[in-house]
């Protein structure tokens, strides 16, 4: 059953404290909404059930903005992908996140879609998620009853679109430790078209070199499992090796044992297996070109 938009109550808190008080009072009766680029589509298709109310975070300025601290970068949950995509701090310290932001939808979507919404929506195809998985992000949740709670990104998703966010909590910001110097990050996305596309396969890579050897590596894929996943066994085979795009073919069998792609309306498992290896190859090549 679909409740018409005109019958859905709309709360517009102005501050985080107001938002948390409403969240505490309303719980699952009021669905938190930021830019609406996922939820307004789901509401229209009947995929939201019949929420009694929306709890709008769009106007809570406390939740928006990118702040560079001494050893980490903080991104407010309602920061838009447009803001992330043009941020010099993001470009410098978490380059792959800017790349992902600029591949979300199109400019009209980027101006409204928020990183917090992308995370909480929890699609296995969320564009920011593979990047957050490789940069050891921490998610900061808040509730009126318990204050702040920090959750490592890898612990946030428990299953397909399932998260540890409790019904009195809101995601307030994302914290990313500043990586050591000479760390390279990259993001790749394959879809039916260059823009306005949900990915068939996505990948993010973080590499730090010592000489020509991979001294530190993280590799994550999207759209090949019920959630975004890191690939620790593939990472272990890359560690210590001289950087080369040919490593992708060497580790392809391990990679393909770590991902669990399915056939769906966008693609097939076989295609996703083939392309995942191709994305690792492309990322390794880009990393090699960047280290010159």
């Amino acid at each position, binding site marked *: 059953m679909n409740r018409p*938009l005109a019958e859905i109550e709309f709360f517009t808190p102005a501050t985080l404290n107001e938002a948390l008080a409403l969240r505490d009072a309303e719980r699952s009766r009021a669905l938190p909404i930021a830019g609406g680029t996922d939820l307004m589509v789901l509401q229209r298709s009947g995929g939201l059930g019949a929420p009694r109310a929306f709890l*709008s975070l769009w106007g809570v300025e406390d939740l928006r903005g990118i702040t560079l601290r001494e050893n980490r970068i903080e991104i407010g949950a309602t920061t838009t992908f447009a803001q992330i995509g043009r941020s010099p701090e993001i470009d410098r310290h978490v380059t792959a996140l800017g790349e992902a932001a600029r591949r979300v939808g199109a400019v009209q*979507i980027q101006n*409204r879609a928020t990183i917090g919404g992308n995370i909480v929506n929890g699609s296995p195809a969320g564009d920011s998620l593979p990047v957050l998985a490789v940069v050891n992000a921490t998610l900061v949740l808040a509730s009126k009853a318990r204050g702040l709670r920090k959750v490592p990104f890898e612990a946030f998703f428990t299953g397909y679109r399932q998260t540890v966010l409790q019904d009195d909590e809101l995601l307030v910001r994302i914290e990313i430790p500043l990586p050591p110097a000479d760390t390279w990050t990259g993001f790749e996305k394959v879809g039916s078209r260059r*823009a*306005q596309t949900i990915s068939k396969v996505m990948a993010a890579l973080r590499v730090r070199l010592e000489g020509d050897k991979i001294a530190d590596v993280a590799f994550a894929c999207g759209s090949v499992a019920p959630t975004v996943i890191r690939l620790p066994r593939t990472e272990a085979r890359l560690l210590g090796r001289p950087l080369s795009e040919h490593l992708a073919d060497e580790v392809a069998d391990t990679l393909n044992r770590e991902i669990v792609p399915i056939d769906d309306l966008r693609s097939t498992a076989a295609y996703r297996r083939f392309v995942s290896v191709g994305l690792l190859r492309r990322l390794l090549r880009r990393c090699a070109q960047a280290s010159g």
Partner: protein
Amino acid sequence: MKVAFTINGRPHDLDVPGARRLLDVLREDLGLTGTKEGCGEGECGACSVLVDGEVVNACLIPVAQVQGADIVTVEGLEAAGGKPLQDAFVQLGAAQCGACTPGMLMAAYAYYQACARTGEDPLDRDRIRAALAGNLCRCTGYQKIIDAVWTGCEALRR
């Protein structure tokens, strides 16, 4: 709920359900039918409007979220300075059925403004294509639209 905002320079005070789409408020409550619904799910860009200078899909915006905002629709594009773009579309045959045209114009105008802000040269067909990637056209095959945006940006610069 009470929602107040400016559209094309004119203030409006409305009492509407907050979750109603901005697109519906524009078309049905305010009679501004220049903004079109092509898909209703943020994929086609036909409903593109400017909110506080940024191009967005009006079909995805609950009207309560534009409280206090400055909105520009295609009806206000000429007053906002966009006539050279509109003239270019007419002169170069960049509209066939016209359903995508208001959205294309708003996205093009936002692109020109963004280039003016950053100092980037708008006269680049690849960058124009990227700026219009959120706007679909079923009729023209896009080439004349890209030509018109290029020509319109060149005229705006003069």
